[in-house]
């Protein structure tokens, strides 16, 4: 079971890294094409560099961004990676803290699951709406709802994760320190919360 979980989380990390890299290099491609577009002879000589082929780059980056956010929060963001207000949490007694964690976990799981059906209803009309530019890249079948569907995945997976967390906290108690700043000491190469805070 643990091996399966580890394999799963490593695969999720792999997907996230691919999305991130795709977004990054698409951006670079977009900038490059904008400049090669000025050289008309280049597009004629190398058809691959024809700027009319690359109308999709910006929207593709937006898709990557949205998918990174919601797949990321579903599968790779750990509890400690979140922005939290932890002043009360960290001074509370272990018993109280346990209930804090249980209440917030139950609230998240319940709330997000409740919103799944109404949200999908809202997205219903998007099943017809075409994307602005992505048909060139993915083919004509792609609709806005396909892109937004990642939010539905998020609404299903996050409640499951929090249900699991509630169960664990109920059995073993809650962590004292939500943020684990200590981890920064070990891997100064990769910075958590690199959000400019």
């Amino acid at each position, binding site marked *: 079971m643990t091996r399966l979980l580890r394999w799963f989380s490593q695969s999720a*990390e792999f997907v*996230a*890294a691919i999305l*991130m890299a795709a*977004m*990054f290099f698409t*951006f*670079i491609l977009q*900038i490059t094409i904008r400049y090669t577009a000025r050289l008309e002879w280049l597009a004629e000589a190398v058809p691959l560099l024809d700027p009319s082929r690359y109308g999709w780059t910006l929207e593709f*980056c*937006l898709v990557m*961004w*949205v998918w*990174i*956010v919601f797949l*990321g*929060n579903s599968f*790779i*963001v*750990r*509890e400690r*990676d*979140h*922005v*939290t*207000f*932890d*002043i*009360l*949490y960290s001074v509370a007694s272990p018993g109280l803290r346990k209930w*804090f*964690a249980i209440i*917030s976990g139950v*609230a*998240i799981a319940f*709330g*997000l699951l*409740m*919103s799944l059906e*109404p*949200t*999908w*209803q*809202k*997205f219903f009309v998007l099943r017809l709406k075409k994307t602005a530019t992505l048909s060139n890249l993915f083919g004509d079948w792609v609709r806005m709802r396909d*892109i937004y569907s990642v*939010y539905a995945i998020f609404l299903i997976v996050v409640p499951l994760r929090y249900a699991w967390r509630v169960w664990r906290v109920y059995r073993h108690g809650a962590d004292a320190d939500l943020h684990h*700043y200590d981890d*920064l*000491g070990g891997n*100064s*190469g*990769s*910075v*958590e*919360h*690199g*959000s*400019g*805070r």
Partner: protein
Amino acid sequence: MTLEFFLCLVTLFFLAGIGTPVAYSILLAAFVYLAVGGQGIGIAGKVLMDGLYQSFILLAVPLFIVAANIMNAGTISDRLLNFCIALVGRFKGGLGHVNVVASLIFSGMSGSAVADAAGIGKIIIEMMVKSGHYTRGYAAAITAASATIGPIIPPSIPMVLYALVSNASIGYLFLGGIIPGLMMGAVLMTMNVYISHRRGFGTEEPVPIRELPALTLRAFPALLMPAILLYGIYGGVTTPTEAAAVAAFYALILAAFFYRALSIGALYDILVESARSSAAVGLVIGGALILNYVVASENIPASMASLLVNLNVSPLAFLIGVNILLLLLGCVLDATTIILVIIPLFLPSCEKLGIDFVHFGVVAVVNCMIGLITPPYGILLFVINAVTRIPLGEIIREIWPFLSVLIVALLALILIPDIVLFLPRMFGYAG
């Protein structure tokens, strides 16, 4: 206040208060608002997705995070540090100055205060403590204080977030941050000189001048980064968002090929870690988009604006009041939350009172960065405490002088808008 909005606030404060991630607290509070108001909770997801999917400017956030992580992983920060030591290490309080100057240069690349503190800050604290001239609390305190400059000098993730909520030009915001950032560096260095003299800190062995050219040359490609970035944006070569991609790409090329300090495995870790941070921040941004929708449908910013106008509050009094409030909030809230959630409340008032959005934005970001080092809840203090094991109490004891000069600098920015607006106007800003 309507009942649904009251319940929304109660839910928000309760959940956030017990340690629920801020993003989820907002999301659930919005559900409560929509459900009680009879609007159907599906709207929240629609608002959130539309908001994230339509804001091109937000793409800069993950890209700057990638850039910062690459800079920290390669040897780029070491080279910059050696250059700074050769440059300003010879003066009284030398390593303190090195600290500030390194932050000034490094901030031109990372755009994140936490990245600065955990990366280059950690190395420099070790050097300061090892030199034996400084107490470890002092080393940590000046590092924390100088890391606040990071997001003031472009590139800056907090300013991207402000641009998102205010629609101010990100280019002019970046320009507006340059002089205030340098000014903050100057006041910190002045404080450092004063304290070093008073407490008689020793001076480091100066690096011989003849070694300076070689060290400069070694650091030169990295020093070029801020220049490339600024030229890209103001030369009209790239949009600010694309500049973020260029910055990350340049850092990648430098670290991988030029300095040969980045393996494929390390790059993979950077991508995963960047995706993780971007996702966490992205969710808060999404939450803020929903909350701003709720606040706007309650018409709160506008009614606050007309109230203030009716009360004849002067723009200066308003600015000072808002800044005091932000400083107090900064003691307990995190900068992302303040910029995305609290700041939008004041923007219509600014407009009515004739306060410039770029001026207000830079002042607000500086304020939020000061909030990162105000006890009891300063994230930079925690990060430094974690990466160096220097007790929080020692850091806090030494932080006060730096905190107070930064607040004086903030006051100057409030009172004299030209400090902020001089550069943007030179580049054609009409405000």
